[in-house]
């Protein structure tokens, strides 16, 4: 009995000590809200790679996947905020309003919303990546590598992010090859391998010999591999899925940003920010260039990559005209971020209309 008392006393002391230390060093807990499953090998997968980087930096993280962009999102956010998370990353455009709404109720919790523009409360930051810079590189490669001068583009939904990508891709391709035509097919899905493969097949059957994609699965590069045409990986390096077809990939690299922001919360230096990082800051990464590309193209791409990173080259440098021939960006000027963020018109050279 005596022994037992001593033992419980000692263990209570140890427990108390641990608790005190924990309270002083306050473990920062980060939560991530995902639109899709972490197993999509695309958008959500890459965010989860970023989350793992946060974990590797020594912080606790949790995530909720497959959260619809509806009232459900609010419920999930409220629950995460209530259960002791210090910073919550909401990784889809549609979480914009729920994020701001819940942020108002929890002023001590920091919120980080990806790809949005509303920061209604001081505890809300937004962040996004300049993927269009990556598409400038893809367009340059596509325009050089095509023999049929028909380039296929599988698009997801008509939102500024996607239109901007189509435009920057086409502008770059035209610059190296004025004869190219970009054929666009809207799949109206971010991720349905069967449908994406069918869309790519239709473009290939119609003579496209380079396929670009703004949907998430690897089905398109695999279809390109089967048909013997070129393609580009999306969101992650897709080279191993189609070693012959994939010339390079544009990778989403969220890890460094996530680690930075969680550290800022831990140090108490977090403040509201609007971040839009590109190749220069490492948020957009270009995978290895395939050796099928001629050496001079590869060095050209390397240089373009460096110039985009340093800001010497901008993806949207005037003169840029829209489809009707109206001037969008004057000669010598570049498109400002406001124009880029709301871009809903095609540039000259893109075929077809934007679905309304």
């Amino acid at each position, binding site marked *: 009995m005596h022994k037992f008392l001593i033992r419980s006393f000692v263990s209570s002391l140890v427990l108390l000590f641990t608790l005190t230390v924990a309270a002083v060093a306050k473990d920062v807990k980060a939560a991530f809200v995902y639109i899709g499953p*972490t197993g999509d090998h695309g958008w959500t997968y890459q965010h989860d790679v970023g989350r793992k980087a946060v974990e590797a930096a020594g912080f606790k993280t949790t995530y909720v996947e497959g959260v619809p962009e509806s009232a459900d999102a609010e419920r999930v956010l409220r629950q995460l905020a209530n259960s002791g998370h210090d910073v919550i990353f909401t990784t889809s455009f549609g979480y914009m309003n729920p994020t701001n709404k819940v942020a108002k109720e929890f002023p001590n919790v920091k919120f980080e919303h990806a790809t949005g523009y509303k920061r209604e409360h001081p505890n809300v930051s937004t962040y996004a990546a300049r993927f269009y810079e990556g598409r400038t590189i893809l367009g340059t490669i596509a325009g050089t590598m095509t023999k049929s001068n028909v380039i296929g583009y599988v698009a997801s939904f008509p939102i500024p992010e996607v239109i901007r990508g189509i435009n920057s891709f086409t502008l770059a391709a035209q610059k190296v090859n004025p004869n190219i035509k970009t*054929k666009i097919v809207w799949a109206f899905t971010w991720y349905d*391998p*069967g449908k994406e493969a069918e869309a790519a097949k239709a473009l290939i*059957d*119609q003579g496209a010999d380079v396929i670009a994609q703004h949907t998430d699965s*690897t*089905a398109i590069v695999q279809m390109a591999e089967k048909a013997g045409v070129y393609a580009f990986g999306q969101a992650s390096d897709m080279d191993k899925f189609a070693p012959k077809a994939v010339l390079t990939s544009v990778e989403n690299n969220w890890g460094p940003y996530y680690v930075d922001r969680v550290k800022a919360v831990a140090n108490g230096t977090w403040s509201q920010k609007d971040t839009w990082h590109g190749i220069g800051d490492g948020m957009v990464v270009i995978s290895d260039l395939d050796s099928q590309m001629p050496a001079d193209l590869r060095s050209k791409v390397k240089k373009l990559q460096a110039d985009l990173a340093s800001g010497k080259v901008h993806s949207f440098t005037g003169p840029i005209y829209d489809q009707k021939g109206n001037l969008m960006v004057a000669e010598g000027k570049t498109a400002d971020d406001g124009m880029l963020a709301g871009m809903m018109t095609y540039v000259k050279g893109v075929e077809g209309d934007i679905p309304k």
Partner: protein
Amino acid sequence: MIIDINFIGLIIASIMASAVPLILASCGELITERSGVLNLGVEGMMIIGAISGFALMTVTGSLIIAIFGAMLAGVLISTIFAFLTQTLITNHVATGLALTIFGIGISAMIGKNFVGIPGKEFPVLFEGLKDTIPLLGPILFGHSIVFYFAFALPFITSYFLKKTKIGLIVRAVGDSPESASNQGINVRLVRYACILYGGAMSGLAGAYLSMIYTPQWIENMTGGRGWIALALVVFSTWNPIKILIGAMIFGGLTIIQFHMQAIGVRIPVQFLTALPYIVTIIVLVVISRDSRKIRLSTPSSLGKSFHKDN
């Protein structure tokens, strides 16, 4: 635009390839429903087949083990459904829905380790004959064994139901389990068998997606095809040949609308993407409007539980 005859052949071949999973799953479900059991778990069984096939292919390296393993996985998961609905007499609709939710969840769990792994190339037959005949060459040759099986299946199913004794028993059980039981037929056994067969075909349909059509594993990769397969069974009024027609129209319009977009036809894209769903239903309703025939082919006891003891 010049319409090349081989171009049409290519389009038809891709339409057929996209119809394969629908035909397989629908023909399987048709047998299940003909025995009077409504299994809404097709999507769940398909996704289980997809992950099982992909996982076995990656782990064992054998395509044969993977294909049969996927069918077996479909059988196993449908055994749960059969046990619940036939032995424990639960409600078919609720159990089927639960099966789908279960299938999607468990496939995601198993699949965690298989994301981001490229699939293997699946061998195709008669590749060399593809260019020998214009138009028909790409349609007839250069496909996987599963493809040929899928296009034979509606005819086999039709023959089985109409001309064989076992087919007659299946129909009798679906129409009037009481009478069948009085004739000495073991209703529960027949229904068990039909459910498991449906599971095997759904499993094969899933394996076709993850091993042949788009060789990779990602969560939810069946993308609602199980539900379309279910709808095809009903709108075809339980006729396997009409399932074939419906699946071809559905697959066909999905692919043709992409071609129309690529050519630059000025029709709103949203309308084009909705087209497969609308047209498939309209066509099947029109070709099946004979109400006498519908009554004849509809399993009268569909979805009703059968208690032998009362």
